[in-house]
């Protein structure tokens, strides 16, 4: 796995971990959404594939009948029909296409639609007036039908290419999330958690240590207090008897006591 062992360079603190966890949650949700999108697109893509194959075959038939109808028209109206038609082309086209956009899971698919511009200014072609007009209009109809199919096919094909591209992009994103971003975040979380645990353990140890020291101190003070009490009792006893050599001894001890303090602390 590509993302194994990688992690973000962050300061291992609880706040950062909260942020990273939020990012991880977002990445997981994003991954799920993208996966769904990719699935939706793939379904659409499959459907379009089937329709393209069907439409290509239908187009073959339509083109065949269209060109045969033209041959019929030429048969009746004679060769000049070709030139009449070619020269009758002037000005803007009557048969045009318009592009719509379908939205499939956030992908804009262009869809073409043919339409006839009826400007009305131009009269329909009178070609083949003296023979063949029927065939000419039949041929025109056949070709319009062929154009219809071709336009549909063109939308399918464009959708095909766009969807193909979109699916590739989506899959790339899904894979990136799955194999790079998410492991990275997970690793980071694990790292932070490890660091934090470590810190906690250290803290605990230190606490223990301090507690031990404090305990010892306490014991010593208790000890000192006891000693003091004993001496005080001895002092009182001595006082009652009058000042004795014990007082000089205690002064000596006091000085010793000061020296002791220095050693301990």
């Amino acid at each position: 796995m590509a993302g194994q062992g990688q992690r973000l360079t962050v300061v291992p603190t609880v706040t950062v971990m909260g942020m990273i966890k939020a990012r991880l949650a977002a990445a997981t949700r994003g991954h799920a959404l993208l996966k769904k999108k990719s699935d939706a697109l793939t379904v659409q893509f499959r459907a379009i594939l089937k329709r393209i194959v069907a439409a290509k075959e239908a187009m073959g038939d339509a083109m065949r009948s269209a060109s045969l109808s033209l041959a019929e028209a030429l048969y009746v109206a004679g060769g000049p029909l070709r030139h009449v038609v070619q020269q009758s082309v002037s000005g803007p086209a009557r048969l045009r296409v318009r592009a719509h956009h379908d939205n499939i899971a956030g992908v804009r698919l262009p869809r073409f639609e043919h339409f006839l511009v009826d400007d009305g200014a131009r009269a329909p072609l009178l070609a083949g007036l003296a023979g063949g007009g029927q065939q000419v209009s039949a041929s025109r109809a056949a070709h319009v039908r062929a154009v219809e199919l071709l336009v549909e096919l063109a939308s399918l094909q464009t959708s095909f290419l766009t969807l193909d591209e979109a699916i590739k992009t989506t899959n790339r994103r899904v894979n990136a999330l799955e194999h790079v971003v998410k492991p990275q975040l997970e690793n980071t979380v694990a790292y932070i958690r490890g660091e934090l645990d470590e810190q906690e353990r250290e803290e605990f140890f230190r606490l223990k240590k301090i507690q031990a020291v404090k305990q010892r101190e306490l014991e010593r003070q208790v000890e000192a207090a006891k000693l003091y009490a004993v001496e005080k009792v001895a002092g009182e006893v001595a006082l009652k008897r009058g000042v004795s050599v014990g007082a000089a001894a205690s002064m000596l001890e006091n000085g010793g006591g000061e020296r002791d303090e220095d050693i301990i602390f």
Partner: protein
Amino acid sequence: MYSWEMLSFNIHDGFLEAIVRGNRSGLLTAADYNNLCQCETLDDIKMHLSATEYGPYLQNEPSPLHTTTIVEKCTLKLVDEYKHMLCQANEPLSTFLQYITYGHMIDNVVLIVTGTLHERDVNELLEKCHPLGMFDSIASLAVAQNMRELYRLVLVDTPLAPYFSECITSEDLDDMNIEIMRNTLYKAYLDDFYKFCAKLGGATAEIMCDLLSFEADRRAVNITINSIGTELTRDDRRKLYSNFGLLSPYGHEELAVCEDVDQVRGVMEKYPPYQSIFAKISYGESQMLDKAFYEEEVRRLCLSFEQQFHYAVFFSYMRLREQEIRNLMWISECVAQNQKNRVHDSVVFIF
């Protein structure tokens, strides 16, 4: 009526009549068509045609054949035969032969004029012209910008000049007018041809007038059907009908007001010769009409060969050849497009 022609016809025209009858036997027969319909590729068609009179014209064509090439070469053969006959012809047969080509000439003029309107290259346009309709000054047609100029500069020297006097009034040339102009010209041409044939007299007049009447009536019916639903007004429509033929004048009046195909049928069924044609097609259908007309025309053209000593054989021969080229075009289109079940739909057997 026929007796005197026999005495003098062969002096001038016997040779050519022999030639044209000889040529006629070169037309493809039903057996040829059957063979052609069996073809799988255009090369097969070429192979079959090499056994016919078209052989020499196709033999040097390189192998990826196109339908247009076949049609072009076959037309070339027709043109060669026509030129040969025209060279040998005496008056008035030569004039008669020239009359036959005026239809193509009209097409060419219209082609050049529309091409010029859209600023196409003249040489390119000339290539597309029908070779039978060429005349010397055709290239200079391109200079004209309106009808008056066209007439004054170019057409006045051509045999078409008288026909143009009718449509010279329309100053602006657009697509609509062009098609009307073409049909007006054609009408004038048919009228003129009719008069010329009537003047020739004898069997020629009788047969040719019959054939031309049929042609005129067919055009009238076609114009009516094809103008249904267009912007062409009744008056315009009426003006495009020829001034002769079986339908003239009463049938024309009725056709002019027709609004759909069944009304046309109603009108046509009053005329016995056309009853049989309309009987073949079912109600509401007009697609097969052209074929029915073609078949009837071919039948009539063939009949003209039954008589001797008249010019109609030349007309018939040219028309039959053109029909044959149309047949070949259809067959090769069907073969090229792999639609052999449709081959028999439009082929008109000549014999």
